[in-house]
């Protein structure tokens, strides 16, 4: 037992231990606070979306950080997960009265469909490289959003009705689930903070299982040097496809959780800006840095909300923070300084 505990702090598993400790610790503290003092509506309202963005950013980091390909369309996968979940949850309301089971089923179907789309999209996307690959992911993101904006879907006693581009549905006492650009208008809110935390833990489990395995090594080897990886028999396409599909599945799950936290949701929510937002979280947290991604997402998601009192200036400040952090991050002098501090600390650790 003692040995096991030591293992957790071994440098190989340290990042993993910190991740789980971070998430579970945050959960326990917030739950205690929620039950002891009254937290503001604003704060509790941010919990589930924050979980969703953490999952989205982690999934994007799998593609951008671990697999080394720039995706500018991840909001598309989130959208697929979101609207699949809305449909599944809406259709199964009567059949499955238990909200927990319905939530699990909805998230599961959202992520599976998103994964399938990810697989289909990866075929053309991974034929390209560099900026061309990035622009095709952007294009797919736009296409997905644009298609969902044109879906009209509802059900009544006659069953499910569907129309595309123009609303031709004639529901008799039924319920519209998707109404084109208006999106979903009357979704049952069945997500909650606990399910968000659980989904993050599951996401972390999947990502850590992957990156510590032969599949993960192949993905990272292909990122670091394509030709060298091929020369030792690593199938680049297969590795990159795996990273892309797993990422799509997770992004879909994030979308599903997100969608079921709001009673209304428009497809426009998942536009280019959301993809970019996730990318900002990933770059701030550090490519391939899981704990960094979790922290950066939390801080950057909460920051604009905290700045709410500054009203119109908040997005301006956000923009300036983005620019300044990037400048500092690539400043050589600063890097040297940080390196020095780090060295001082590690030396101390040795002498003690």
């Amino acid at each position, binding site marked *: 037992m003692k040995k096991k505990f030591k293992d957790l702090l071994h440098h190989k598993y340290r990042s993993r231990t910190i991740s789980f400790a971070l998430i579970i610790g945050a959960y326990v503290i917030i739950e205690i606070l929620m039950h002891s003092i009254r937290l503001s509506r604003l704060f509790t309202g941010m919990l589930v979306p924050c979980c969703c963005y953490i999952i989205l950013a982690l999934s994007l980091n799998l593609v*951008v950080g671990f697999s080394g390909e*720039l995706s500018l369309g991840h909001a598309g996968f989130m959208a697929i997960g979101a609207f699949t979940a809305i449909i599944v949850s809406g259709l199964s309301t009567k059949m499955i009265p238990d909200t927990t089971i319905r939530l699990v089923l909805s998230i599961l179907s959202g992520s599976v469909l998103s994964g399938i789309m990810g697989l289909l999209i990866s075929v*053309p996307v991974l*034929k*390209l*490289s560099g*900026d*061309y690959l990035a*622009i*095709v992911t*952007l*294009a*797919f993101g*736009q*296409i997905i959003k*644009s*298609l969902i*904006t*044109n879906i009209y879907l509802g059900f009544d006693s006659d069953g499910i009705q569907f129309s595309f*581009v123009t609303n031709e549905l004639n529901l008799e006492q039924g319920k519209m689930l998707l109404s084109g650009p208006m999106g979903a208008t009357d979704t049952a809110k069945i997500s909650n903070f606990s399910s968000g935390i659980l989904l993050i833990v599951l996401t972390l489990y999947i990502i850590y299982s992957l990156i510590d395995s032969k599949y993960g090594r192949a993905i990272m080897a292909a990122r670091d040097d394509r*030709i060298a990886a091929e020369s030792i028999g690593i199938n680049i396409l297969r590795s990159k496809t795996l990273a892309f599909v797993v990422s799509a599945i997770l992004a879909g799950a994030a979308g599903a959780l997100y969608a079921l936290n709001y009673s209304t949701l428009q497809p426009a929510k998942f536009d*280019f800006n959301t993809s*970019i937002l996730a*990318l*900002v979280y990933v*770059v*701030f947290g550090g*490519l391939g840095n899981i704990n960094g991604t979790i922290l950066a997402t939390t801080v950057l998601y909460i920051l604009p909300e905290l700045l709410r009192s500054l009203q*119109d*200036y908040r*997005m*301006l400040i*956000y*923009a*300036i923070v*983005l*620019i300044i952090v*990037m*400048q500092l*991050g*690539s*400043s*050589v002098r600063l890097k040297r300084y940080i390196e020095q501090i780090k060295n001082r600390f590690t030396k101390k650790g040795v002498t003690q």
Partner: protein
Amino acid sequence: MTFLTYLISGLALGSVYAIIALGYTMVYGIAKMLNFAHGDIIMAGGYAAFYAYTRFGLPAGISILLSILTCTVLGVIIERLAYKPLRQASSLSVLITAIGVSYFLQNSAQLLFGSDTKIFPSILTEGSLRFFDGKLIVSYLTLITILTCIVIMIGLTLFINKTKIGKAMRACAEDKEAAQLMGINIDTTISITFAIGSGLAAIAAILLCSTYPSLSPSLGSMPGIKAFTAAVFGGIGSIPGALLGGILLGIIENLTKAYISTQLSDAIVFAVLIIVLLIKPTGLLGKKENVKV
């Protein structure tokens, strides 16, 4: 005849895309970065012309010049302050910075000018030409747009090929270190590239706002993404590619809107882009780069 009408208006829209795409492609070719804030320079140009013309009552010509000047200066300042310190940084850091600049411009505009939509005045011209007994109507604006694009293309090609600065730009695009060894000042060359690209954005802004006369802080986003797509479509880094990509994109978009569906036009435009890239992975006129092992 209606087909011809759609084709000509598509050509005009494509000309605007091409002018914007030139900015993307030149900056990419020389600084190897995707300048996501380029679309917001268009917005800045639109507001500059709007205020000069309606609030300060300046004549149209002066307003246009002022708009071009504003964008040029803005472009150079942005490059110096935000991008230059990142010359050695990873392309992702540069991309995020560009996104930051884009947010900054949009939100500054919102604070300065308000988030309400303003009606852009017909600063250029009104009226139209009629052909075939009025079956084909082409507005002067459409003609001016197409002509402007042609003039810019010819001018830019001459500039790049004949002048010393143009040659320096080509040298930088080819190999920055070698260019530096030959005595070319990289910083100046990059600044000039941003200046030209941003000046072109102002021209695009006036043409765009004259065609679709509503002005808002997010005005540049969608045309920016479309023009960026056009640049990739034609082969990013290639000037004729930007022209071809822009024109094709404009025509495809307009014909889709006319004959297939307005709501699906974006999806179709992007689908065409994907198909083109699958057939020609570096765009229509892009160069293939070989990896040395």
